[in-house]
């Protein structure tokens, strides 16, 4: 089970690695960018940015197309490895696929680590109202169902860490507390954004209360006007089954 990780803390950091990561983040944000643009975005010299890109390209982590730089496909192998041993992913994909078959909506699994909430699995449903692939994406608003499900189960420190990393943060502490209390009472979270799609999510915790992640169903708003209660039941039932399956499978399969 994932342990709560402390973020960088007070340890020393290496400047050039930080710059390197800033370049990668910029490549992720801009979907293709030139050296000059990168240099100005990061307030660095063109030659420094160029050296970074050359190094990354040498190792296959950056690729060049039409004079612009893109993230290399090689990152996928790191990403795949990062989630390969995730307990919730191991047991959750079948359960989420069953939910998708049952409802026709799109199912997702997200986890929280080091203050980042990231979607690690997605199964599109027949009646999927939105087609954007979310897998691998950071959840950047506190108003999404899956973010709220997750936030409702986080310790105050981890909650702060996640909120530091989102683009859309709650207007006030009171608004956040109210919203999360409602989620804890219902056992599920709904999407709070004005948009065509609706979503319902439930946190998945271990039997001993550790947060493992959250699962969600997303689809056209009309599904949530007619069937909100039964969709909420389906998602929370699956989360409860996953709690037992994930906890016991991990326990049974741990070698001494």
């Amino acid at each position, binding site marked *: 089970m994932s342990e709560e990780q402390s973020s960088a803390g007070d340890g020393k950091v290496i400047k050039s690695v930080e710059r390197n990561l800033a370049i990668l983040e910029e490549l992720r944000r801009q979907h293709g960018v030139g050296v000059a643009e990168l240099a100005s975005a990061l307030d660095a010299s063109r030659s420094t940015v160029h050296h970074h890109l050359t190094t990354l390209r040498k190792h296959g982590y950056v690729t060049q197309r039409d004079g612009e730089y893109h993230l290399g496909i090689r990152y996928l192998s790191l990403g795949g490895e990062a989630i390969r041993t995730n307990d919730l992913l191991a047991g959750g994909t079948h359960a989420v696929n069953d939910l998708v078959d049952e409802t026709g909506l799109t199912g997702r699994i997200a986890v929280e680590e080091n203050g980042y909430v990231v979607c690690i699995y997605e199964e599109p449903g027949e009646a999927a109202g939105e087609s954007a692939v979310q897998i691998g994406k950071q959840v950047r608003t506190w108003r999404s169902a899956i973010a709220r499900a997750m936030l409702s189960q986080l310790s105050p420190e981890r909650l702060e860490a996640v909120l530091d990393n989102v683009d859309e943060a709650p207007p006030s502490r009171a608004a956040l507390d109210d919203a999360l209390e409602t989620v804890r009472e219902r*056992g599920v979270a709904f999407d709070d954004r004005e948009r065509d799609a609706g979503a319902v999510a439930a946190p998945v915790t271990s039997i001993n209360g550790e947060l493992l992640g959250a699962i969600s169903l997303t689809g056209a708003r009309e599904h949530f006007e007619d069937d909100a209660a039964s969709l909420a039941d389906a998602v*929370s*039932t699956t989360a409860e089954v996953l709690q037992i*399956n994930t906890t*016991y499978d991990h*326990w*049974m*399969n741990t070698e*001494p």
Partner: protein
Amino acid sequence: MTPNEPLEVGIVGLGTRGLSLAERLDDMGISFVGTEINQQAAAVFETRFDGRIYQTPAEMYESDLDAVLISTPNKFHESAAVAALDRGLDILIEKPLAHTVDSAERIVAAARESEGQCFVGFDRRFSDTVQTLRAYANEGRFGDVTHVEARYVRRRGIPSFGTWYTSKAIAGGGALIDIGVHVIDLILHLYGFPDVETVAGTTRREFGDHDDYAAALNLWKNEANSRMFDVEDSATAFIEFAGGRTASIEVAWAANCAEAVSHRYRVRGTDGGADLHIPSGTDREHELSVFETSTSGRPHFVDETVDTTHRDATALQLAAFRDAIRTGESGHLATDEEALATQRVVGRLYDD
């Protein structure tokens, strides 16, 4: 292993059932250790029995154990059992054998490869009235037993509403796999495990969806936030065995009926019959009545009430398991193959 050599038993799963097994081992003077994933339950075990807790089943199996009791949720019987059998340990698995027929078959396959003995906790067999009834039947007192009418019906008795007990994925089913298996096992035990020819029946979910299941009676649902309930709360079945013998079964966790619990067997033979009533709990009397005819003097009916001692069937089962560990004799314990026969009847009724 020689008689009287001290035993050490490991318990996998220390929920309510695991703790009640530990209590009985304690009374019997058998030493035991345990493993449990739920930290609160593990703490209760440590406090109550000053018992040693291992972090995982694998870690516990590494210690010097003679045997293992498995009382996890049904779905996890297989992994706990197979790992123990692979080490050649004798095991007693709580009923049912597994949550599905496939899982049950894998346990039986592992048992065949293992030096360890594999038994399943159909403890109702060990009550004195059941053993008396079975002995009468075997002695031919009823002639040929041709039909058993059995019911295990609770007025309001859905266990731990919304926990794994009411989840198809974890328990494998509802009333049928929880209490119905006792009924099927006792019928098969009485008949001597004949081949099962026809299984017909139906399962229903009539109370689990009702918010007023208990409201009118001021009973409570466990854990208000818990919603898992996708299993049957009652079942009715008819079974035909080789040779034309039959059984009808009525099982319910909840039913609108007079008695709080009704657990009865009506045994019909060509020369006589019997009624057996198994009360819930260990404190009340089991009732066994025998019905015969006689031509002494003038033809008449003879109705007899049988008085037996009322011992704790679960403790008697553990004593039989202790003897099996020491001698390799299975006594009245349900073997893995017998439990598989019961599981197959359940599987046919679920149409899994």
